[in-house]
């Protein structure tokens, strides 16, 4: 294969590029295509097979259907509290107040929401939802399309994008950002997986909508496609990432598979046991026991494992006991869980406990942006953006989730901010905004990594390095975090970095060479993992999902702020949290209890 350069690859030009074809990407592209802008969605898989499909539960929004008195301010209060006070209150206010508009738009586009008897949109209760600023009890605020909301959302958005004329570059893989001499983003270099053909995709605005990167961990609920490609690209280009220490873990993923076992199991009376058969949550949370918060249960499980009371040959998991509930209850109330357990653990919960382990679920951090999706530079100024670069959805950190995301808020995040980015880009480009052309050297620079991989004659094997990376992240930067452990983890990552930069691509073929894709995905995962490791080590407090044994308390004096990771110096800086919503008074930090 000859060396790729700006003179031997073609250029495809659009007004806007959206990298990623999940919910956030397609909501952005829909807004742009409706405005008449030439918009291309670059997706490595067919868009309706994106990971948004896994958001089965619903979209949380105060549309006042289940409760006519419901108020977006109550939703805002819950979200600020859930974020452990490092969610930006201007962004949370925007999401909660604009949310109903975005949801009704989806309804009008044809999203088949479930209905109440009188024809209104059905809303279900989720954890962390309250009425009257936490004083009025449980709210039912999550709009659902049965248990397939993500699937319905993807189809609605895809069909409407086709109708509005979005261009889909399906099974295309974006490799690296192209930046011009003014450090404006002018597009990406990418290749068609089917043919191997490489192109410079040029645009006035590039939107990263590539979702999360849960594959940095060995145990994750994330699909194989969740490799943080947009974040990997931006980190390689020296663009910062915010709050990367904040990862949500679900306590009960099936050991060895990652498939989620819903909290409903413990709600029905199931409980966790260690190798001695002890119901250990009674020691850690004497009142709530197995129904304590997700973070509390997950940390307790890891402590049991670390103290040698884990189950199995390697003592590296615990058991979820359900058999005492009886076959009738299990088959009637938890049929899906029984089937998942039989399939992935070869265990029938009617007779035996399910092996489970805390499992990575959601990335709260990402590329820092304002409510229009504009990506921030590494600067303390709120007006300092990277021209041409935007980010939305799980890839972005806008930040509405702060240190902990509430259930049902991920779909709202992506439709509200996908729409907002689309509206802003349309207005900006139509009023003459845009970026300057790049030089050929800039394209060549963006091709460097791909060329190096294509030219490799020896080096490290991708699958072995990926396994090593995932184990380091799971062991040192998972639920249980302590400075001395994380120091060891950072050292291990330094050794892995050398391997990442010297991967060997044995198969150099062009058409459907999935090895090439997997090598670059691994490089993207590594960038995200390193950002996570350094951010976790340097945030010396416990807040939300980030829980440190050596710093067990929240430290508002020093850490009521975003962490901002600089990939060039690998130093963690700070950015202030917004406490200036425009329509309500800010919610001041309080002790977060449930």
């Amino acid at each position, binding site marked *: 294969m000859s060396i790729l350069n700006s003179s031997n690859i073609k250029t495809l030009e659009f007004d806007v590029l959206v990298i990623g074809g999940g919910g956030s990407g397609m909501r952005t592209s829909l807004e742009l295509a409706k405005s008449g802008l030439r918009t291309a969605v670059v997706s*490595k*898989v067919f868009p*309706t*097979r*994106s*990971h*948004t*499909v*896994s958001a089965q539960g619903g979209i949380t929004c105060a549309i006042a259907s289940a409760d006519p008195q419901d108020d977006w301010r109550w939703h805002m209060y819950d979200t600020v509290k859930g974020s452990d006070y490092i969610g930006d209150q201007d962004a949370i206010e925007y999401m909660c107040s604009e949310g109903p508009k975005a949801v009704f738009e989806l309804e009008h586009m044809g999203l088949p929401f479930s209905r109440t008897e009188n024809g209104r949109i059905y809303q279900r209760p989720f954890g962390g939802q309250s009425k009257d600023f936490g004083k009025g009890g449980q709210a039912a605020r999550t709009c659902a399309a049965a248990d*397939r909301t*993500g*699937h319905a959302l*993807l189809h609605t958005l895809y069909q409407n994008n086709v109708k509005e004329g979005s261009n889909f570059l399906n*099974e295309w893989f974006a490799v690296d950002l192209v930046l011009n001499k003014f450090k404006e983003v002018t597009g990406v270099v990418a290749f068609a*997986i*089917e043919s191997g053909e490489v192109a410079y995709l040029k645009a006035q605005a590039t939107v990263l909508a590539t979702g999360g990167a849960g594959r940095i961990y060995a145990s*994750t*609920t*994330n*699909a*194989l*496609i969740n490799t943080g490609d947009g974040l990997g690209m931006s980190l390689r280009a020296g663009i910062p990432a915010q709050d990367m220490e904040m990862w949500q873990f679900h306590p009960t993923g099936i050991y060895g*598979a*990652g*498939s989620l076992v819903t909290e409903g199991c413990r709600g029905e009376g199931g409980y966790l046991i260690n190798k001695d058969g002890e119901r250990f949550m009674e020691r850690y949370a004497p009142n709530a026991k197995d129904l304590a918060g997700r973070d509390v249960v997950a940390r307790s499980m890891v402590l049991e494992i670390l103290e040698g009371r884990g189950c199995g040959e390697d003592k590296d998991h615990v058991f979820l006991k359900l058999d005492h509930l009886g076959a009738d209850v299990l088959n009637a109330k938890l*049929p*899906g869980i029984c*089937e*998942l357990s039989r*399939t*992935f*653990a*070869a265990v029938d919960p009617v007779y035996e406990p399910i092996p489970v382990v805390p499992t990575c679920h959601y990335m709260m951090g990402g590329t820092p942006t304002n409510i229009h999706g504009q990506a921030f530079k590494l600067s303390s100024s709120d007006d300092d953006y990277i021209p041409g670069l935007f980010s939305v959805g799980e890839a972005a950190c806008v930040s509405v989730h702060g240190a902990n995301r509430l259930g049902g808020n991920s779909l709202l995040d992506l439709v509200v901010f996908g729409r907002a980015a689309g509206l802003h880009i349309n207005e900006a480009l139509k009023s003459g905004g845009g970026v300057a052309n790049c030089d050929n050297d800039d394209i060549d620079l963006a091709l460097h990594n791909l060329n190096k991989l294509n030219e490799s004659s020896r080096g490290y094997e991708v699958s072995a390095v990926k396994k090593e990376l995932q184990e380091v992240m799971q062991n040192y930067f998972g639920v249980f975090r302590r400075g001395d452990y994380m120091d060891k983890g950072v050292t291990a990552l330094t050794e892995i970095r050398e391997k990442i930069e010297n991967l060997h691509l044995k198969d150099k*073929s062009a*058409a*459907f*060479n*999935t090895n090439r894709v997997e090598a670059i995905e691994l490089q993207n995962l590594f960038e995200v993992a390193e950002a996570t490791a350094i951010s976790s080590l340097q945030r010396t407090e416990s807040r939300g999902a980030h829980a440190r044994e050596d710093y067990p308390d929240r430290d508002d004096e020093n850490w009521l702020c975003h962490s901002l990771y600089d990939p060039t110096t690998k130093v963690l800086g700070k950015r202030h949290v917004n406490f200036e919503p425009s329509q309500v008074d800010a919610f001041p930090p309080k002790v977060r209890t449930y």
Partner: protein
Amino acid sequence: MNTDINKTKWKCRRGLRELDLLFRKYSEDKLDSLSQEDFKLFNSILDMEDQPLYDFIFKNESLNSPDKEKFILNNIKNFTDK
């Protein structure tokens, strides 16, 4: 044929973790030795959307295709048996 196999392997990348696990395992174990007929049937299953496949495998909701259902039950769902 190699390109066809790689193309099929890429189609095993799904939006849902559970389907990733099932299809990837099957493709790694069996794809190279499938008959043309089974190769075609497996591809027609991969062309389906994630949600109905998930609902069939874990909730027993029909796919309205006895051939596909039989193939999944006999070859793909028995994840831990292989």
